[in-house]
């Protein structure tokens, strides 16, 4: 992909991530703090097809844009730490253990660290670590959504394979 195309693709992904993030915010949660984390689909997808720098850019942009739509600084802080932590974990796992680990496992780890990170920021912010009583529930939800995200990404990659194949052919010409 050339530079313009890459930038275009990247902004498209950011846009999708923001939309997913906002829609997700409207879905009633069963338990406090339980977010489906669907925006992670985009992050993980970007990590697989574009690279780790692009994945981080998407997370940061997605968080900034989403908190403009609602939240403010504390919400921004809350999601940026969760988002970055989760992405860094996924990047490390993908870069170094790619061959020994499946996409779903990477995604589950990302989701879990996303929740742990958020809880940590929240605990520091309100200066009360008792909110860690929500950790078990957040872990379970992390496993479930992480697995779902992993499956979705696999599906996505499968269908994009043709597109990238075509792309490469055109570049070769």
């Amino acid at each position, binding site marked *: 992909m050339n530079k313009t195309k890459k930038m275009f693709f990247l902004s498209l992904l950011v846009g999708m991530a923001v939309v997913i993030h906002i829609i997700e915010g409207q879905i009633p949660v069963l338990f*406090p703090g339980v977010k489906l984390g669907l925006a992670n689909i985009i992050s993980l997808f970007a990590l697989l097809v574009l690279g780790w720098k692009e994945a981080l850019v998407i997370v940061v942009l997605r968080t900034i844009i989403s908190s403009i739509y*609602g939240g403010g600084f504390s*919400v921004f802080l809350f999601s940026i730490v969760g988002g970055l932590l989760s992405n860094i974990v996924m990047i490390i796992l993908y870069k170094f253990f790619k061959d*020994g680990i499946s996409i779903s496992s990477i995604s589950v780890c990302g989701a879990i660290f996303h929740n742990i990170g958020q809880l940590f920021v929240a605990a520091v912010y*309100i200066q009360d670590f008792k909110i860690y009583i929500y950790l078990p529930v957040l872990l379970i939800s992390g496993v479930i959504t992480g697995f779902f995200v992993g499956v979705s990404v696999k599906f996505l990659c499968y269908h994009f394979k043709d597109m990238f194949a075509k792309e490469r052919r055109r570049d070769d010409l």
Partner: protein
Amino acid sequence: MKKGDKIVLMTVLALLVVSFLSVIIYRISYKGKALNAKIIQNQKVLVEVDLEKIDEPKEWMVKGEEGHYNIIRVEKGRIRFIEANCPDLVCVHTGWLSQPGDIAVCMPHNVLVKIEGEKEELDEISY
């Protein structure tokens, strides 16, 4: 299943067990203790009240900057957020708190409601 997946699975399971156990221990350590509820805004305790001594339900509005508000309801033995204008409403979804150790948070407004097992100790009463 790859080798890495097994490690992830084991770690996640271990983490789950440990965190559940911790919460259970935490709950047990608080069992049967006082129901002393605190409403905290920006790390400052606004209200501290013994939930067992509440005779009639009461609602408080905690006001913050820029028109932020959370409404908190107390009844005998329990307390909860009932309304707020924060974006995520996590605080309201948390529902009733009625056990020592329970906690509900509104991150965007930095408002926190929790029940502590310790009764407040006063040095003196001015009358």
